[in-house]
């Protein structure tokens, strides 16, 4: 047999080797190993190496989501042969491989100039007598498609994906995002995923949240561990306690992917534009950590709207945002609509609105229906100095039945009937 080339025989013999493989992912060494083995029947599905081969990703012409088995030890382990060929390297071999899976194919990686010799005998004939051990070790060709749009074809065979599903990661949502599916398949559980999960556990994130975190931000699994550590240390240096850091990470997982400089800039922005003290800024960010992740333009616009259009004073704006930080990212149109109704129709002055900012966070329809009901009953009195005062906060926060019984002193059925007359 030609020693300078290896034969790929796609007859479904899958060699797995995860421990050795993990150490020797370089395909050059694989080839050398294969060559030294000589006459072994090396089998391979096309495999994709994990994360280190970033160049191969860009050279992928098909989205080959293939992976290697990590169970089933056979005698092939002894030879430490690695048959993880990077098939993308070999264009012609690829084409030939997929057209005729049963023919032995020469791998042209090592010797690109070697001519394809399809007649170089099928050394393995079906009528050949083989030993018992070999017979037992023949595995059924897997039915894994070389390329697929869904991860469910691979989840049973891939250790990484099965463990992710057991953690609670929503693979169905992730596979709809471009390239995330291929990225997840290429990960190795023990080298990539496990250290990062341990890191999350160290910071104090609850294990039941892992699934949610990875579903929101799958790129945390490819982020450098040192960067992750430095970002968490930066947050701690800004005097966020560890529990708060853990809760921020679990509610806004993208924080871990932002550089320290960016996080610093954002915190500085909130402190300067809102003119808050450091502890108040920390308080806002602890309550709504996604302020650090999203774009700053809508926040700037909302600030301008509150100042100019709605006419709030600076200390009122500060109070609103400290009490209800969500208003910073609220929809501009909804904000003006609610304010217009509350100020002009319900005749509530600015300072009272600033005192109860939850009203700006509520659904507009709800405020309108409830106010009209109270008006119909003659109970729409929002001035704290006069008797029978109804606070804005109680108006919007309470669920419907409590609103009916306590504030409007009517039955829920009456409220439904009234809603149908509007």
């Amino acid at each position: 047999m030609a020693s300078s080339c290896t034969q790929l025989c796609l007859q479904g013999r899958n060699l797995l080797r995860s421990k050795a493989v993990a150490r020797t992912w370089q395909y050059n060494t694989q080839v050398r190993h294969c060559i030294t083995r000589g006459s072994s029947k090396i089998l391979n599905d096309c495999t994709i190496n994990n994360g280190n081969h970033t160049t191969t990703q860009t050279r992928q012409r098909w989205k080959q989501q293939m992976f290697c088995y990590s169970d089933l030890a056979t005698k092939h382990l002894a030879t430490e042969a690695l048959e993880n060929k990077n098939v993308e390297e070999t264009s012609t071999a690829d084409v030939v491989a997929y057209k005729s899976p049963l023919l032995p194919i020469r791998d042209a990686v090592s010797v690109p100039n070697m001519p394809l010799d399809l007649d170089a005998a099928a050394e393995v004939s079906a009528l050949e007598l083989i030993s018992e051990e070999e017979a037992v070790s023949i595995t059924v060709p897997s039915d894994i498609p070389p390329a697929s749009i869904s991860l469910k074809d691979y989840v049973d065979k891939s250790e990484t994906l099965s463990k992710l599903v057991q953690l609670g990661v929503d693979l169905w949502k992730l596979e709809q995002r471009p390239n995330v599916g291929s990225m997840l398949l290429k990960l190795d559980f023990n080298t990539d995923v496990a250290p990062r999960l341990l890191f999350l556990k160290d910071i104090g994130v609850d294990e039941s949240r892992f699934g949610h975190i990875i579903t929101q931000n799958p790129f945390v699994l490819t982020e450098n561990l040192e960067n992750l550590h430095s970002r968490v240390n930066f947050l701690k240096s800004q005097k966020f306690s560890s529990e708060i850091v853990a809760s921020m990470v679990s509610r806004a997982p993208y924080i871990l992917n932002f550089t320290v400089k960016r996080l610093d800039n954002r915190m500085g922005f909130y402190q300067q534009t809102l003119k808050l003290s450091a502890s108040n800024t920390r308080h806002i960010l602890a309550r709504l950590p996604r302020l650090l992740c999203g774009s700053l333009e809508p926040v700037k616009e909302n600030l301008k709207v509150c100042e100019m259009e709605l006419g709030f004073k600076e200390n009122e704006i500060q109070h609103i945002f400290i009490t209800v930080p969500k208003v910073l990212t609220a929809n501009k149109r909804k904000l003006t609509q609610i304010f217009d109704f509350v100020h002009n129709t319900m005749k509530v002055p600015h300072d009272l609105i600033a005192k109860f900012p939850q009203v700006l966070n509520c659904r507009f329809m709800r405020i309108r229906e409830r106010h009209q009901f109270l008006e119909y009953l003659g109970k729409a009195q929002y001035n704290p100095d006069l008797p029978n005062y109804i606070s804005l906060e109680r108006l919007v926060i309470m669920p419907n039945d409590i609103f009916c019984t306590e504030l409007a002193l009517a039955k829920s059925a009456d409220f439904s009937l009234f809603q149908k007359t509007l």
Partner: protein
Amino acid sequence: MATPAIRMFRKIEGLFCVYKPAGVHWKLVRGSIETSLLKGLNATPSQPLPTEVRFLALPVSGAEAPKGLTLSAASMPVLSKHPLVTGPEFQNIKVGVGHRLDASSSGVLVLAVGNGSKALNNLYNTRVTRDYTLEGEFGTATDDFSHTGRIVERSTYGHITKDKLERVLAMLQGANQKSLLLYSNVDMRSQEAYEMAVQGLLGPDGKSLPILTGLRCIHFEPPNFTLEVQCINETQKYLRKVVHEIGLELRSTALCRGVRRTRDGPFTLQDALTRDHWAASDVIQAIGKKRSSKKKSKTQTKDSPLQPSEESTTVNQMKPVREQQ
């Protein structure tokens, strides 16, 4: 084998009506109903995962070649059928809308889920009338006939009295009755036309201009007034235009403050679901109620075939208004 979600879906298929609030596009209403139905369907308990038997090798110590392979059989769940991998069982539901309501009107909106859309088509192929309540205001005219438009004209309305209004309404009704007969495609001089008129089956065939089969004033307090209308083939804009024309006929101006649909065919305000009752369980209840009441009314009409059918064409047979006060 039907999963609990599919069984629940069979119960959801049908016709029901909701109360559309003013200021919301009907597509948003349909979208929210679809979301809440999906939520209810996907919340049903999922089936247990199927298992398959796989042969796993016992771990081998060291790199020595084993003499004989020992395999153990283990029954493991098939993760490719897990809901986190396949996605929820229902990802889309077909929700059809009956006669549409534009954004600034409110009222009864009929929706059909799944197979119910066939029944919806049948309903609208028959001649179905709708009831509206129009709130009008004298003194101003706008370009789109509603109170949010650009004001075009202002006028006095002090001279308007209730009987003047009634006279104008009677005249309008007469004109509409005429067009009703005109569009019915039946020769007015024939015996057939007389018999149909007696039974109340005279009406426009298929598409025609909007026709008001009934019109009366239920509240008059200048400048505000309220009309109750029964009509066929209408649009809400046409109804606002009717209010505007009434103002013109009275030598003043009028605009329409609110259009509210109180009945759409057999669906009334009583059956309509308000915003807090848009969950899947409430919808199932409403569909069941409507079906049983339809069955009841069918058996009743079978017993007495001589009663006039639902579409009444004369003023005397107008349905009483359901006042919600």
